[in-house]
């Protein structure tokens, strides 16, 4: 086995990465009300409590609406941006793409506070729509990056070939480009969905009185009594994220296999 020391270090590092996640199910099934060792006993009460909680259900509904809408909007905008940047030359391309990617490096506190100030001063009612507005913005760069990779791996002459064989520009896009970038679109949707579902700061500032999953969790963390239920919720969320990510990874790889490109690995 090569790189023995490095391998041990990498495994320890993975352990560090997974430490909190491993603890989640342990305490979610622990019958003790305090999150500490030693463990008391096995219970599924916290999951029951979670499923009966009405405000949690409301937060979940809100979050799902926000995540689905934001991922669809962000992916649509991402398709435009990715196609423009991979296929066309136009004046100011660099700065324009920079501006679209800016939310990646802009602290979310700045994005949300500035948006909040504007929304308040023009008298917009804060609700889940305003959160969708913010989430679409921060998901757009991720969608653009994923879709640009998908569009980039396409040979430009495929589109020309379809056109040459009698299709119109639109039907060439629909029959050739769209099926080939579909895996990219699906992984963009899934990734945007995951980001939105987990996003806290923008939801915290822009949701008004509407709870979302993260803001609900944040508000409950103050009450020690609620913590075991939050652990159960966290466990469910982790399992869901892993499922979604696995699906996203599957589609990404299938996309690569389809276009016959080499796997360069990884998200981002």
């Amino acid at each position, binding site marked *: 086995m090569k790189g023995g020391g490095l391998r041990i270090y990498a495994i320890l590092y993975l352990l560090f990465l997974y430490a909190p996640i491993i603890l989640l199910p342990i305490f979610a099934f622990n019958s003790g009300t305090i999150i500490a060792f030693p463990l008391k006993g096995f219970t599924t009460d916290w999951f029951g409590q979670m499923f009966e909680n009405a405000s949690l259900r409301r937060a979940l509904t809100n979050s799902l609406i926000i995540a689905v809408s934001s991922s669809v909007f962000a992916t649509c905008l991402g398709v435009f941006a990715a196609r423009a940047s991979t296929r066309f030359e136009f004046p100011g391309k660099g700065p324009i793409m920079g501006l679209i990617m800016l939310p990646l490096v802009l602290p979310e506190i700045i994005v949300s506070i500035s948006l909040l100030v504007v929304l308040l001063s023009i008298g917009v009612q804060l609700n889940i729509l305003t959160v969708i507005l913010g989430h679409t913005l921060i998901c757009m760069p991720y969608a653009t990056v994923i879709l640009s990779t998908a569009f980039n791996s396409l*040979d430009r*002459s*495929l589109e*020309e*070939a*379809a*056109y*040459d*064989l*009698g*299709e*119109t520009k639109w039907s060439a896009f629909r*029959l*050739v480009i769209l*099926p*080939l970038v579909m895996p990219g679109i699906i992984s963009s949707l899934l990734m945007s969905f995951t980001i939105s579902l987990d996003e806290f700061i923008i939801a915290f500032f822009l949701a008004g009185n509407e709870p979302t999953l993260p803001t609900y969790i944040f508000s409950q963390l103050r009450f020690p009594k609620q913590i075991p239920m939050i652990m159960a919720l966290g466990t469910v969320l982790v399992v869901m994220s892993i499922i979604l990510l696995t699906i996203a990874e599957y589609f990404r790889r299938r996309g690569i*296999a*389809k*276009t*016959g490109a080499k796997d360069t690995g990884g998200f981002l």
Partner: protein
Amino acid sequence: MTTTSTAEHRARTATAKPMIECRNVQKYYGDYHALRGIDLTIRESEFFSLLGPSGCGKTTLLRTIAGFEDISSGVVLIDGQDMQDVPANRRPTNMVFQSYAIFPHLTVAENVGFGLRRDPRSKAEKAAAVEEALAMVGLKGYGARASHALSGGQRQRVALARALILKPKVLLLDEPLSALDRKMREQMQVELIKLQRQVGITFVLVTHDQEEALVMSDRIAVMFDGQIAQLDGPEALYARPTSRRVANFIGVMNFLPAHVLGETASGVEVDVPGLGRVEIPMSNVSKSDPGDEGPTVGFRPEAVSLVAPGQPQQSRATAGVIDEVVYYGDMTYYDVRLDGSASADGRARPVRIAMRNVFGREVQDVGTRTNVSWSPGSLVLFR
């Protein structure tokens, strides 16, 4: 299908009706002048090649014929019809792309039948047409295969079948053989010629490979810097290039400075150091490129020969010393310093001579004195 000889085929196409006509075609990309006034007529059922180095405009010209690029000015006619407002998807041309552009998400049959989507024929008839097109390119029974698993040669055949199934008037081929290995390329060259004779339509091939153009084409347009430098049949292009640049691009040519002595009824009389006084037939005389250093005669390495005593000679002979020998297996290249060809610095510029290594002919050594035999008809003059 009846087999016709290349000569018959060329004789027939030489008088066929024009299929593609370009008149003063100009193309600018911003400040860059990609096509500088192309005038060109390509005839029906002709195998025509656009040959030139990368960046010479050959691909741009092909793409303007296909309709992928707008022209800045000028006229492109296909089968007598002005193509100005006809987009690529409604032109009677189809293209084989350099990368073949095989749709990776479709099967072989779906690729070949791609262009039949708007065809009013029944499903069964279309399937039969696809099968027929596949058979034509030697891929019978490959229809159900996934296209991303095909080899380079097979992809090329699928691309050909996909374009030809639409029965275009012109097939455009953009460097179709450049992705193949040497053996495969040579095999496909022969197959493409056969296919072209079989379907009988005009083929326009873009290539940077002079050998490929010479092997396949009825006529070749050599392009440099967005202009056509010479348009001729393969033999004429090779034997009588009209400029040093074309001569250098196609094969190897020796150049020797010449003094023009005068014109006669049949040719131009020149004095060439190393070769002596010679009359060059008028058909082999062309204007030199501007900027070249005066009149020059040129000849191909295989147009002259080293002769040992007792071997048959061409009409003239000169003596020289072998300066360098490069052995290639089937051929040997000799660099020979001709007597009396010394330039001002006292050193002669050697000329390259190619000899086939046939049975009984020994490879000569460096430093050997030898006779070089040649004919005035194999010289060309750029004046």
